[in-house]
């Protein structure tokens, strides 16, 4: 087995185990920690593909910023352990089959492979320079639109927070 394959399986195992423990764990902090483990493992997988910038941004944004806020809020509210509930009828008859279906679909797509697909714009997005060229030249409009979307979300958060006073 090549070193790359070993690293891949280790990271994949961490990601899957983290995801399972995120759902199973009863304490919110443990769930949050599992999610961080998933994020870091995913960053490792990106790194394995040579996408350095994406990997590091995954860590900075998700693990370093968003999840810190999650942990911060959980600590601030001092949330206790959750109680377990049985599956609701909705989850049992609609949710489970849909989830199963989604998994099948994903497995099918992954099984078909992506070897035939070319990277967008014909440029490999692995290098930081290429990625920024793609973002700011080929996909400038969607990129800017996303930033407006985020701005709207920030404004919304501020408005919601102000209303409570």
């Amino acid at each position, binding site marked *: 087995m090549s070193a790359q394959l070993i690293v891949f399986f280790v990271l994949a195992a961490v990601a899957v185990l983290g995801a399972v423990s995120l759902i199973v764990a009863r304490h919110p902090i443990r769930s949050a920690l599992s999610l961080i483990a998933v994020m870091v493992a995913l960053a490792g997988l990106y790194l394995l593909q040579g996408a350095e*910038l994406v990997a590091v941004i995954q860590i*900075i944004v998700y693990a370093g910023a968003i999840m810190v806020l999650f942990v911060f809020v959980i600590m601030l509210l001092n949330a206790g352990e959750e109680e377990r509930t049985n599956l609701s009828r909705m989850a049992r008859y609609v949710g489970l089959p849909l989830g199963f279906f989604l998994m099948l679909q994903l497995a099918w797509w992954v099984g078909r492979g992506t070897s035939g697909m070319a990277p967008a714009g014909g440029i490999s997005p692995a290098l930081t320079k290429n990625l920024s060229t793609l973002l700011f030249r080929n996909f400038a409009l969607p990129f800017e639109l996303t930033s407006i979307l985020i701005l709207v979300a920030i404004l919304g958060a501020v408005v919601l927070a102000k209303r409570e006073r």
Partner: protein
Amino acid sequence: MSDFLAQHPVLATSIIKVVVLMALMLTSFAYLTWFERKVVAHIQSRWGPYRVGPHGLLQPLADGLKLLFKEDPTPGGVDKLIYFLAPFLALALALSAIAVIPFGPGQFEIFGRATGLQIADLNIGLLFLFAITSLGVYGVALGGWASNSKYPLLGGLRSSAQMISYELSMTMSVVGVVLISGTFNLREIIAQQQGYWLGFIPRWNLVSPPMPQLLGFLVYFISAIAETNRVPFDLPEAETELVAGFHTEYASFKFSMFFMAEYFNMITVSCLATLLFFGGWLSPFPSSSVMAWTLYIPTAVLAACALMLFLDGLRYTTKSGRIVLPVLAIVVAGLAVICALPGAVEFVQGPFWFLLKVFLFLFFYVWLRGTLPRFRYDQLMSFGWKLLLPVSIANVILTSGMVLVTRR
């Protein structure tokens, strides 16, 4: 085993470099604590550690042994996993950040393979460093939370709020440097700062056109002090209010892991300041034939140290001191001679200037600790959000404007 290492030369050289760097780092951590205690003591007109070894030189060793053999009680009702995980996380992250820092331009050979004075030369070195520091909050926050006690919890909350706030301005303050050099690779960032203005002013990012990064540096260093939870931003462990903050419930080795993490973070942050704004390993003197004598500055500095040690050792109060200090002086003098050897002169330049600059920053840290009182919490927050962040954003806008104008 040897076959495996021969097939994976990068792995083999990396392991050796990691082991050596770890040993060096742990030693420098130990003597950084000694240095800090000594300097703060002298600032406050005290002697500092003086009993264990001459000039207290063995104090770090004694402290380390004491911490190792102390009782390590676990408070009741803690989340065991997270309680144990937190110090490991803090230390591991602090150590891994040092892996991307280049200590010099030179190359040396292990097993016939040339390798640089750096463990990993990443294209995204700078971003990697910020990714690691952004994760550093977890050690403190989780340690505070998992201790199941009110003071650590408050300390952990304070520190996560503080680190989130100051991380913003710290990252923004560096954007100016990235804009000027156009790369995240730390080696290339240093290489870009080569050269001199008017023949003698070094073109370090701090002073170099198109936009001197003076503002960027100030914001970076202030935020970095806040990120490492040091005085005057050490609210997470304000002992007058919070006992010892997030590590109140930790004892023995787990406490020392937090302690080490803090010092390693200081070292990392100082290294980053050096290589982003102060030209990293570049010498402040131009390398013309007139200035060739500057190549022997490392030797001169070491020789001066040796002389001082020797003279002080001769009239030291204890007998062991009169033996140890001159021996130490001879070792340092030997180092000075090695630095002057024809082959070594060039190689030593990079690490010498780099470490000297890092040392000055570390001294500055200690100096601040000896002189400044602590901020109040609301002052801390308004300072970070209302002053540092706008200034760093202004710096980014100014720098990008200047880069745009000059790069036509």
